[in-house]
């Protein structure tokens, strides 16, 4: 029976069906649900690793030891895991290893939109690109087979729309596979220069074999128009071919005329040269439609073919169906041509769906910290003190947005502490007296700890705020080493953050509740003034975290309300950036705009109550 699955669910299912025994990942949108789903299959040992490098190293160990392995991460996670990845290419695997790279074209939830197919080419490993959930399931199984057959890790590259779209899948049963034999093999697994020199030619040879495989692989297929009935009409018209991959294939199928021939590449590295050149020679003109970089196109042009590509299609952002349609209006289905050609026909042309309704710029709706969020108090104080804030990746990055505006830099996971130290080194101690690094608990464990060691070792005085909300918030509340629970829900040893921080040599370690605004402010001022490194552990659980007693505690509070007679319209509370506080229209004849509370959203956290000087905001009794 067919069932609806997201691409991420289908990856986990495919791994399970293919007898995978170990799954590792660090959470990151759009990849997170892969391991969350994998963890529901008891036959697979799934883990949240502290970071992507560790995830791939654990995966490498599992595969070399003979068990089939799935490793998943978002595109920028592969940057973190790149070190083991490139050498894993040399050692090869024993049992199959698939690395899922979930890229984020359009940057729905990312700091860049790098195209990770380049990693496949740079690390000289095959890259597979599914276009829907059934292909996710099928490709992960095939990737494990290829991995073992060619002794290589295989990258399966997803994009947000493949990961987070649901489509129909025919699930199968699990195939139990016994562990492959493990034996010590120094020349294969100890990459001393002498051994690595022997492995590199093997890698190059492997690529040639994979390119040969790509010529006949079911992953790459041509879809020719049905010419029987229209044969005569087609004679004499120009034959058009399109080479495409991943989700773009589905968009092309959606908008392009049925007379267009398609070459769908499910394997985009290495490319099948003969198959592609036969296809290009079978048509009069050929278009390469791929999202982000000209990865396929560059290789094809290097072979000397003349094709249309990035001179027509953007390199930036998602390549949406309407973008394809507006780039090649002459190739569209007849039913869509009228809708997407209005722009070129001018304003007087016959009505069209989109173009004569020029998009109006409406007031935006940026994401906000949730009602009751512990981070709101932190950034309110940082803003009031006008500090330089070196930020990091997580929900708390939203502290950068108005009205909190309390962040200067956000680069990548774990960067905050190192960036703050660099600022101190360049601008001196006085500058550092108004400088803090802000990092979440999960991000600190991911890659903040090494930079903190740098601060201690190289005599910095950086003040670091670890925002410990007891979860990995932005990606949807995953466990991490600081929560003391595994992805499978088992209780485990919980990292003691204060003890960890002291152990690397930080003497000044303070824990504080950010909702105690006065104490938090005092502690912050004191620690920034100190002539040595300090760490403030800002502790309050995420309001959404489950299952947590804290949640019931917080939501048990009734919404707050405003005593309108006392409200002076000072708007101090609005500096919190709480979505529940609303600026009212002035009463007739009055100028002051008072504040009211949206009771449907307010969870009664009381932060606004504590800073309302006229005491107009009050907790409701009972």
């Amino acid at each position, binding site marked *: 029976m067919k069932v609806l699955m997201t691409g991420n669910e289908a990856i986990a299912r495919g791994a399970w069906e293919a007898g995978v025994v170990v799954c590792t990942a660090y959470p990151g949108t759009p990849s997170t649900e892969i391991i969350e789903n994998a963890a529901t299959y008891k036959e697979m040992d799934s883990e949240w690793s502290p970071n992507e490098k560790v995830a791939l190293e654990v995966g490498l160990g599992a595969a070399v030891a003979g068990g089939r392995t799935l490793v998943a991460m978002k595109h920028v996670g592969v940057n973190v895991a790149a070190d083991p990845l490139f050498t894993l290419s040399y050692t090869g695997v024993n049992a199959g290893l698939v690395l899922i790279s979930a890229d984020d074209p359009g940057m*729905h939830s990312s700091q860049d939109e790098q195209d990770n197919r380049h990693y496949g080419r740079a690390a000289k490993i095959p890259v597979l690109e599914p276009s829907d959930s059934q292909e996710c399931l099928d490709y992960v199984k095939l990737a494990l087979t290829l991995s073992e057959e060619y002794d290589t890790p295989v990258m399966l590259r997803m994009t947000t729309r493949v990961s987070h779209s649901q*489509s129909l899948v025919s699930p199968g049963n699990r195939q139990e596979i016994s562990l492959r034999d493990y034996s010590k093999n120094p020349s294969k697994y100890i990459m001393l220069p002498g051994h690595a020199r022997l492995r590199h030619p093997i890698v190059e040879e492997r690529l040639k074999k994979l390119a040969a495989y790509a010529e006949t692989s079911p992953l790459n297929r041509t879809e020719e128009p049905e010419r029987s009935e229209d044969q005569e009409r087609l004679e004499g018209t120009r034959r058009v071919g399109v080479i495409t991959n991943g989700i773009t294939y589905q968009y092309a199928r959606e*908008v392009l005329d049925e007379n267009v021939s398609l070459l769908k590449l499910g394997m985009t590295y290495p490319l099948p040269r003969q198959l592609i050149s036969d296809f290009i020679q079978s048509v009069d003109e050929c278009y390469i439609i791929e999202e982000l970089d000209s990865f396929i196109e560059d290789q094809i042009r290097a072979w000397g073919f003349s094709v249309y590509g990035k001179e027509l299609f953007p390199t930036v952002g998602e390549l949406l169906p*309407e973008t394809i349609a507006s780039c090649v209006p002459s190739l569209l289905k007849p039913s869509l041509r009228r809708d997407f050609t209005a722009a070129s026909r001018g304003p007087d042309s016959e009505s*069209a769906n989109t173009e004569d309704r020029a998009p109006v710029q409406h007031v935006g709706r940026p*994401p906000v910290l949730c009602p009751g969020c512990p981070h709101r108090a932190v950034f309110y104080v940082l803003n009031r003190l006008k500090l330089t804030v070196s930020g990091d990746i997580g929900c708390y990055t939203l502290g950068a947005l*108005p009205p909190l505006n309390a962040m200067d830099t956000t680069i990548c996971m774990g960067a905050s502490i190192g960036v703050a130290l660099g600022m101190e080194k360049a601008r001196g101690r006085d500058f550092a007296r108004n400088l803090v690094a802000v990092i979440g608990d999960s991000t600190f464990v991911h890659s903040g700890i090494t930079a903190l060691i740098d601060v201690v070792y190289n005599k910095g005085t950086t003040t670091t705020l670890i925002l410990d909300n007891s979860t990995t918030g*932005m990606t949807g509340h995953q466990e991490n080493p600081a929560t003391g629970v595994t992805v499978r829900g088992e209780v485990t040893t919980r990292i003691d953050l204060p003890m960890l921080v002291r152990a690397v040599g930080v003497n000044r370690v303070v824990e504080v509740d950010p909702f105690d605004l006065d104490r938090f402010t005092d502690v912050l001022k004191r620690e920034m003034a100190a002539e040595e490194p300090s760490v403030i552990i800002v502790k309050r659980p995420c309001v959404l975290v489950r299952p947590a007693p804290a949640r019931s505690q917080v939501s048990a509070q009734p919404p707050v309300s405003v005593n309108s007679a006392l409200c002076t319209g000072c708007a101090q509370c*609005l500096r919190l950036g709480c979505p529940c506080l609303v600026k009212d229209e002035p009463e007739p004849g009055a100028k002051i705009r008072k504040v009211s509370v949206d009771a449907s959203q307010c969870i009664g956290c009381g932060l606004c109550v504590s800073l309302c000087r006229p005491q107009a905001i009050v907790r409701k009794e009972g």
Partner: protein
Amino acid sequence: MDTIQNDPLSILIVGVGGQGTILASRILAGVVLRKGYDVKVSEIHGMAQRGGSVVTQVRFGSKVASPIIAQGQADIILGFEKLETLRWLPYARRNATVLYNTQSINPMPVVTGAAVYPPDAEDRIQSEFPQAVPIDALSLAQKCGAAKAVNVVLLGLLSRFLSIEEDVWLDILRETVPERLLDVNNAAFQAGRNGLLV
């Protein structure tokens, strides 16, 4: 599998992160799947869902390729909030069915006073789509016992515009929502389906 007016049919569900658009799209997808259609659903997770503008897309028919709807190609827009409905109108076909909740939720630039909520949002929806159907889904959901059930009220309204038996909707609802919330959700569905406040 019954024939539908456009094959595939494209439904755009828009709202504010936290309003339950994803659950609504999953129930809708379950319903059309039960009727034997091919179906694809697209959602966005992560940063975008923290109180931001969210959109989920459901497409169904005899065969669906793209999981997302191109601009100007949505057959139905189901708006959970006025401003979001207005924002996404360019995705609707000319003759699209527009159904929208009259609730307004202030975005942060409005909260801080940097911008104003368009006071004529509803007029603009109605002037572009005179047949657009408003519903006060929040009040109806509250009357049913849970403000959170706004999404199911709106599904009830949507169900009037799709020729799919009520039983199928109720079956999928029962299979999707927790048992303790079933009565509230059934009531919310009925309120949306039968209790139009036009």
